[in-house]
């Protein structure tokens, strides 16, 4: 297999500066024309705990996790075992550490990785008091083929002109020098510098931006890992755009605040994670019944309960789709990559506004907190605006039955449009009703407006035309995409179906996508096969279907999917 990308992990205890190295490598790579990706993994400590920063460089846009670590630079070995599960070392890997930090742990020694000792600390001392992490930065840059200039420019920005820049570069130079004689890294082909516009963004930032592009001008939220950055970027941007952000006292308040704002006509959003989503469900149900558009982003983490707040999983699918009391149809969608957080959130707002219904967007930690250097997507447009009448003639009926089941919605301030938004079952005018007929009419209406809407092609991505389909969603799409790119050799070929719209189901379009498919592997990162079971319940898929599910926190790799298919072949 040709080396297409390079994965470098820098690990160390808190304060040792591993993250600075990771950030600098990412930015330097961007300046050099690489595509890149940075993930961070840390222990439970807020400060002072160990951390591992992994930078992946590639000449092509990066879809998924690296299969193994090419280069591990260990600033020290404290608690390195915490990362053992997440770091695949093998005979293609190189490990470098400072012998002064103690012996290489058994688990790492036994991995078969090539080992090199390098006295980071001593080199740093020689280099005029630079910190050891700067040596490591130089070593990494040199081994990855990143120019000194790209590192220099990045460090200059980071430390803007401060003393640390000068000593830092001294360290970097010492590191470069020390790495010069080293060989053994299988370098990917250097990037072809491209004129395409690139950006450096995390999924959480992209989601916030997508919301703003869609016209969101109100947001409220309560901090929670790993969703807080969505709120942070909104809090920063909204006031400048004439909008408003509120830090709420809890999630119950946050979701009701956005319902209030949206009732007032201002598209509104919140972001949270599993525990917060659970608290919001009652009021999301209110938005279903009262037909108020809102968007709730759930940046999923490991569950259940408080679970694993800093790690990724796809196990909130059940609650997102089925977690509301009563019959409460709503939208559930999921971005398929870091970049796609932008457009999927944008689309979610637009659909929610048009259909007057809550949309839950399922992102996860692996998308939200990963920083990517990638092509900036071209802006997309959706023409779906909220159906607000210009004026009201005669008696206004807020929940009027209409051909497309969407009723015109007046906004406070509009004369003659006064009505009461109602969470009790109601008749067309909004007056509470316990009558079977009114209940049925409104249930039908709320279902039909979603079920009969034409979501177009954007609801799912299909790639390949093979007879073995991989159906997946969210962060796991990347691994499947990589498999398709690498392994066209599978018998009958592969076909990837990546769902962006999870609910409501799209049986017709799905059937079309599945034409010629003989078997389906359903791939997801959950323990309970939530997605597989959902597909079984909502679609009539008449071909053989298998589930490959695995919980977090370690991401699903292309190679695992391949293994599943091979086992299926041979069984």
């Amino acid at each position, binding site marked *: 297999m040709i080396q297409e990308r390079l994965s470098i992990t820098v690990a160390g205890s808190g304060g040792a500066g591993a993250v600075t190295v990771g950030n600098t490598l990412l930015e330097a790579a*961007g*300046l*050099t*024309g690489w595509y890149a990706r940075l993930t961070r993994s840390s222990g439970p400590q807020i400060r002072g705990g160990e951390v591992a920063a992994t930078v992946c460089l590639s000449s092509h846009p990066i879809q998924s996790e690296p299969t193994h670590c090419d280069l591990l630079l260990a600033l020290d070995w404290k608690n390195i075992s915490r990362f053992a599960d997440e770091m695949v070392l093998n005979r293609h890997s190189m490990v470098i550490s400072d012998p002064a930090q103690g012996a290489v742990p058994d688990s790492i020694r036994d991995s078969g990785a090539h080992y090199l000792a390098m006295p980071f600390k001593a080199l740093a001392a020689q280099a005029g008091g630079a910190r050891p992490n700067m040596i490591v930065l130089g070593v990494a840059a040199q081994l990855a083929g990143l120019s000194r*200039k*790209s590192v220099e*420019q990045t460090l200059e920005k980071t430390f803007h002109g401060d003393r640390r820049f000068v000593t830092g570069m001294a360290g970097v130079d010492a590191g470069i020098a020390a790495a010069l004689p080293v060989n053994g890294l299988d370098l990917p082909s250097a990037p072809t*510098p491209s004129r395409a*516009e*690139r*950006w*450096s*963004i995390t999924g959480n930032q992209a989601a916030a*931006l997508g919301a*703003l*592009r869609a016209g969101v001008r*109100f947001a409220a939220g309560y901090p929670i890992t790993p969703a807080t950055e969505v709120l942070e970027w909104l809090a920063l*941007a909204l*006031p*400048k*755009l*004439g*909008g*408003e*952000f*509120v830090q*709420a*006292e809890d999630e*119950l*308040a*946050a979701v*009701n*605040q956005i*319902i*209030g*704002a*949206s*009732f*007032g*006509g*201002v598209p*509104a959003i919140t972001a949270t994670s599993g525990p917060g989503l659970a608290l919001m469900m009652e*009021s999301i149900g*209110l938005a279903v019944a*009262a037909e108020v558009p809102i968007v709730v982003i759930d940046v999923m983490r490991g569950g259940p309960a408080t679970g694993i707040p800093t790690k990724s999983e796809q196990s909130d699918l059940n609650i997102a789709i089925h977690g509301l009391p009563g019959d409460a149809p709503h939208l559930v969608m999921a971005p398929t990559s870091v970049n796609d957080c932008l457009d999927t959130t944008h689309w979610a707002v637009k659909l929610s506004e048009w259909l007057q219904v809550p949309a839950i967007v399922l992102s996860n930690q692996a998308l939200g907190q990963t920083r990517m*250097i990638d092509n*900036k997507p071209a802006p997309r447009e959706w023409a779906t605006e909220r159906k607000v009448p210009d004026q009201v003639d005669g008696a206004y009926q807020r929940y009027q039955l209409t051909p497309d089941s969407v009723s015109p919605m007046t906004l*406070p*301030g509009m*004369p*003659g*449009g*006064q*009505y*009461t*938004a*109602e*969470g*009790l079952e109601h008749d067309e005018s909004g*007056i509470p009703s316990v009558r079977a007929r009114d209940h049925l009419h409104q249930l039908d209406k709320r279902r039909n407006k979603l079920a009969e809407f034409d979501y177009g092609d954007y609801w799912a991505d299909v790639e390949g035309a093979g007879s073995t389909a991989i159906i997946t969603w969210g962060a796991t799409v990347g691994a499947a995409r990589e498999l398709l790119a690498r392994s066209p050799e599978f018998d009958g070929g592969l076909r990837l179906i990546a769902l962006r719209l999870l609910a409501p189901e799209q049986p017709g379009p799905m059937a079309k996508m599945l034409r010629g498919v003989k078997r389906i592997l359903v791939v997801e990162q959950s323990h309970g096969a939530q997605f597989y079971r959902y597909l079984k319940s909502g679609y009539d898929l008449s071909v053989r279907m298998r589930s490959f599910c695995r919980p977090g926190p370690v991401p699903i790799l292309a190679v695992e999917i391949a293994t599943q298919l091979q086992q299926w072949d041979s069984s």
Partner: protein
Amino acid sequence: MKGKPSHAFSTKCYKSDIKPIWCPGCGDFGVLASITRALAILQVPPEEVAVVSGIGCSSRIPAYLNAYGFHGVHGRALPLATGLKLARPELTVLVAGGDGDGFAIGGNHFLHACRRNADITYIVMDNQVYGMTKGQASPTTEPDWDLSQLTPGGPGMNPFLPLLLALGSGANFLARASSSDPGGAADILVEAIRHPGFSFVQILSPCLTFQPEQRKWKKMVRPAPVKATTDPVRAAKRLMTDDNFFVGVLYQGERDPYEESSEEVTCKLDSLESEFQLPGLL
């Protein structure tokens, strides 16, 4: 008559034609009358008023008014109204509901609304009971009220003093009114609505069905003997020692209301996006 409107919008303009579900004699009728009267005094156009509520007999009130209304879920009226007001600052936003809705399930939002001080008026129709669910003890119920099977012998705890709680959490306009005097209550509501920032009006509103003793309230309420204080320490003392039957504005402070960001657009989204742009290639 005091406060009688003589302008374009009569009290009737603010009433909807839906018949209340309330029991005969329920205090909430008086509260409804006081709200329509206050709005008529203020002459705010019906379409610029929004009334938000939770769940309870009292929380049914939005539908009985001719205004924009939101009958939300139990206990969450204040945050819903906060979102509405901050998104649409030009609206007159009222929140109305019961003691259960506001001080039991909704207690946290009550505290935080007092602290946040957004410019909304919160009317609690306090009948010291959960009327809607057929009579259980609420946070303002007396310790020895023993008519609910859920609290045999009575809840056995001192009732909350809602005005004191509001003061302690930073509210800046505190008043008590009685549903038996809709005119007086209307005048208080007018002041409350005019007050910049969060205003809280506790209206004693009997539930004759589950708290038949409250029939007596009508005779027990009387105007507060001294004027509203602006000193929170003095207000606390008054609230801790009064007998809960003084009506009137009891405290009015001068803390600045919650400041919404200006609605002015100071920046285009494009330029915000440029934060993520990579500098030119080396």
